[in-house]
């Protein structure tokens, strides 16, 4: 990569130009710092401690971490193939699909939440909800868990036989079979007992609401990632004996790792901050569908400003920690790749 930096400013007019750019851009940085500082100084450590000892906020933290993580995995699951198709193929209606994918980004979040709610009042929506309510345990044990497991193995062990097998159409079914002959039945029963629930105004709705928005960002990131990877390497892989899927798994996907980390970071951070769709579609029920973003709203609505600020500070800290971790991991990855 070439160094894009210019030589040091030569004279006063150069300095004045750079100073003007710094003032314009720096004003936004100052605003962000001011927002963070205002939050920090409006509360005390005692108030923070009190807020975090609250059972409701602890539940919100737990649900936020779990839902954001599940949403991120599901978002990547969709974003990687969709991004690859958009970057590499020309199919009828591609421009239409491309435009549709931008809708969740530009649509007001409340509208997304309302649309989700309406969707689940339709006949297909109700039927889907009936299935998940009565077969949630089986759905998770024999469908979601095998898919996630196979994807993690395939991504983590791209060049091993196990990784290659996990990435085929048989990977997830084999995991499902292993679960079935081992702990599958007990696991399905437990998950059904603990998680059998409707979708609307329940935990799955939180994930769905987050997924509906976060995935759009993940798709955009993965599309750009695959566009930046030279198709020539894939073409050479084809001449060396690969099928299209082998070339993807062995040559293209390893090059996309940093992009996937970026997409995962964006999806996770976006999910954490999602409020509007969750409020409409999941409600803001304490100890049920309450996540950190709705916690802020709930605390504010009962006049508990200190708790609202405490949760805000926590969200800021978590967001910064995720960003820093991903940047560090991404930079370390660059020396390997």
């Amino acid at each position, binding site marked *: 990569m070439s160094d894009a930096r210019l030589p040091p400013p030569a004279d006063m007019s150069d300095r004045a130009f750079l100073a003007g750019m710094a003032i314009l851009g720096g004003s936004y940085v100052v605003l962000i710092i001011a927002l963070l500082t205002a939050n920090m100084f409006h509360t005390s450590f005692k108030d923070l401690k009190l807020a975090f000892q609250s059972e409701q906020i602890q539940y919100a933290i737990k649900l936020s971490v779990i839902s954001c993580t599940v949403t991120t995995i599901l978002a990547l699951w969709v974003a990687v193939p969709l991004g690859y198709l958009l970057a590499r193929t020309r199919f009828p209606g591609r421009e239409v699909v491309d435009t549709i994918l931008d809708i969740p980004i530009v649509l007001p979040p409340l509208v997304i939440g309302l649309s989700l709610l309406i969707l689940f009042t339709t006949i297909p929506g109700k039927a889907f909800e009936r299935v998940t309510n009565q077969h949630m345990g089986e759905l998770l044990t024999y469908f979601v868990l095998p898919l996630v497991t196979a994807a993690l193995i395939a991504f983590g062990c791209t060049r091993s036989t196990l990784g290659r097998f996990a990435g085929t159409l048989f990977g997830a079914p084999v995991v499902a079979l292993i679960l079935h002959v081992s702990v599958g039945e007990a696991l399905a029963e437990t998950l059904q007992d603990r998680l059998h629930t409707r979708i609307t105004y329940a935990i799955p709705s939180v994930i769905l609401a987050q997924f509906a928005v976060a995935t759009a960002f993940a798709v955009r990131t993965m599309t750009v990632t695959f566009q930046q990877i030279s198709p*020539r390497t894939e073409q050479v892989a*084809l*001449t060396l004996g690969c099928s299209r899927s082998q070339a993807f798994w062995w040559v293209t996907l390893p090059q996309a790792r940093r992009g996937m980390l970026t997409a995962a970071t964006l999806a996770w951070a976006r999910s954490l901050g999602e409020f509007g769709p969750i409020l409409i579609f999941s409600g803001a029920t304490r100890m049920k569908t309450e996540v950190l973003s709705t916690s802020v709203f709930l605390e504010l609505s009962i006049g508990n400003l200190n708790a609202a600020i405490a949760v805000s500070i926590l969200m800021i800290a978590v967001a910064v920690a995720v960003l820093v971790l991903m940047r560090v991991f991404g930079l370390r990855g660059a020396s390997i790749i």
Partner: protein
Amino acid sequence: MNSNLLEVVNLGIQQGKFALDGITLRVPTGSYGVLMGRTGCGKTSILEVIAGLRRAHSGEVLLGGRDVTFLPPAHRDVGYVPQDGALFPTMTVAEQLGFALLVRRAPRNEIERRVQELAEWLEITPLLDRRPQGLSGGEAQRVALGRALSFRPRFLLMDEPLSSLDEATHGHLVRLLQEIREKRDVTVLHVTHSSREAGDLADVMLRLEDGRLVEGGR
């Protein structure tokens, strides 16, 4: 088996405003063919059609008498060295050289043996643990050449493999290509705009001008 290992018959290529038509060329078995022409005349496109990386508008591609026009690249037994080498950024040199055999599920010791054999011939043994980012231009081209030959293809396609190399590296690679030519166990089509390279290497010289082959065959 047809002695003309590679035949392209009445090939037509069209993409946007670019078009080639009625291209027919033959490179005899074991010969070193050089396809010349100015930049942008369609040499790379012809190579890509033969490799199976681009669909022809019309015509046929025949390898050893077998019509491969609609076969995927993996089934054509063709090694391909693109202009920029296109090494896999996440693999070491050793992994690149062994990749084609890994895809073919060759035993591990066979892969290791072949990698060592290629590394010694290409004089890149000290580079086996390096990734492409740590290679010079000449080193990268040697790795690309080794990778393309690793599975002993019957046909080798090279797109300007010697461009933008310094004189010493250029000379070294020419010597390697001359060795390939002398062995006669692979038929080569080498694309270049350099008449010096053609002079050093070609058994069969072909020139593409204004969408037509003006010289060809033997």
